[in-house]
């Protein structure tokens, strides 16, 4: 690829489609399996991750010139931990019920590989505005993936979407069971792979 700098808009959509954290990069799988039982859970955790990603990206982009390269990883970790503490306390104070449902996962945002990766690969080399767009795209991509998973599991498991009854019956109770998370993620990945295979084949035929 040519060494052309991407526009902010491209950066933004890059995170949502081309490099979607869950479906394309296969990073941060734990929450994708663990708490994607409903759309609401996915939305809330997605928002928390979005917040942490955007603010950490901006912070690192701001102070990147003052970080000694040898201690950059600990600096990233501490920056993320600080923002996670902020969102953790905020969620615990304002939405205690949902916070309980998400359990330990909010605190574990600190260990999500996707955030550290974006800081290392992008925010430490780019301007604040570019990092903001990149962080926003990645966060939204994560949120989108979580909500898709939540949508599938909630619809198939309970016949509802966002708590509203859609189908009027529950087709497969199995999908609300925690272990179904593995199956849904596996099937979704297989679906994306399948689409890619078919797409590539069509392209070849056209040629």
């Amino acid at each position: 690829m040519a060494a052309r700098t991407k526009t902010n808009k491209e950066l933004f959509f890059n995170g949502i489609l081309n490099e979607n954290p869950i479906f394309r990069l296969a990073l941060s799988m734990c929450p994708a399996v663990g708490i994607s039982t409903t759309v609401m859970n996915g939305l809330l955790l997605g928002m928390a991750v979005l917040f942490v990603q955007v603010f950490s990206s901006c912070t690192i982009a701001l102070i990147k010139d003052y970080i000694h390269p040898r201690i950059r990883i600990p600096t990233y970790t501490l920056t993320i931990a600080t923002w996670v503490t902020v969102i953790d306390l905020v969620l615990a104070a304002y939405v205690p019920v949902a916070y309980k449902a998400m359990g330990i996962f909010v605190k574990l945002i600190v260990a999500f590989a996707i955030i550290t990766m974006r800081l290392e690969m992008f925010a430490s080399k780019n301007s604040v505005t570019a990092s903001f767009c990149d962080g926003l795209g990645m966060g939204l991509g994560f949120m989108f993936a979580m909500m898709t998973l939540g949508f599938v599991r909630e619809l198939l498991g309970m016949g509802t979407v966002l708590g509203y009854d859609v189908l009027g019956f529950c087709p497969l109770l199995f999908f609300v069971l925690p272990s179904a998370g593995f199956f849904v993620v596996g099937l979704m990945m297989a679906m994306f792979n399948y689409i890619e295979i078919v797409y590539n084949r069509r392209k070849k035929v056209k040629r």
Partner: protein
Amino acid sequence: MKERMRHLTLTGLLLVAILVSVGCDTGHRFVKKTEFKDGETIVITFAGPVDEAWAKEKANYAVYEEPDPDILLPIKEIRLSPDRTKVTLSFDDGLNTRQAHVLKTKEMLSEGRSQGTAVLTVKKLYFGLLLSIFIGAMLVNNFVFTKYLGLCVFFGTSQRKSTAVGMGITFTIVIVFAAMMAWALYQFVLKPFQLTFLNIVVFIGLVSLSVQAVDTILRKVNPALFKAFGVYLVLVIANCIAIAVPLILADNEYTGPESFMLALGAGLGFLVALFLMSSARERLELANVPPSFRGLPIAFIVAGLFALAFLGFSGMSIH
């Protein structure tokens, strides 16, 4: 490798056997056993059948926590087993099963004969509690298959059996080390100075530190071992179980030995999960998997099946 697996299985079975055989000595000849059940009931097993009228009378029992004898716990319901040897007392509020309880009964009547009064102590053996934490962390609430943590590393290192075992052992060593430090730091520094809101920041630093420490110590003390396991050390930091264990022990206010057991259980549970998964994935390579499922997707499906199987352990949960 087979030898090691056999040892592992044997040790596991032994632990379960000990756990099952842990009973309570009661100190009264007519009462065989007293125990907590489900965290809100006490079950008394008698040596012979007791009279129903006596057994169903709430005034015949007095239960209190050992340190405060003045606060009697209100009994909600009494059930008697069909053979009249087992009495189940349920209480309005849940019992604090970590505390020893004293159960006093008035004159016990059995087949019209009096068996005298009894003062019984109901407690969970500390050993049993430790074991239940260990088994809980390892099997019942296996961090990978029932808590869905550490998946990135789990899928990354479960392709070969040798890698899986190496990663599992390294992880166990580091997590025990980190958990003990986290416990000490939490109990003696963070809590006394009311800095618990710094939990996340402190623990993540601590985990990186202990990885570095284990790295340095292992390199000096046992270079051969370091050569074999050094590669996996970096991956431990990326494992969210490593940060989850300190957070859990801080949330539940575990004591030193309890934290140790939790960390050991988490580490060994991760090892068991990795080993099972790598065995399955080595076979998968020979299988004819549809192209779109190759690689990660099929690994996820397999993990889902394992998770379903681990659901069976939830019947083992010990309160």
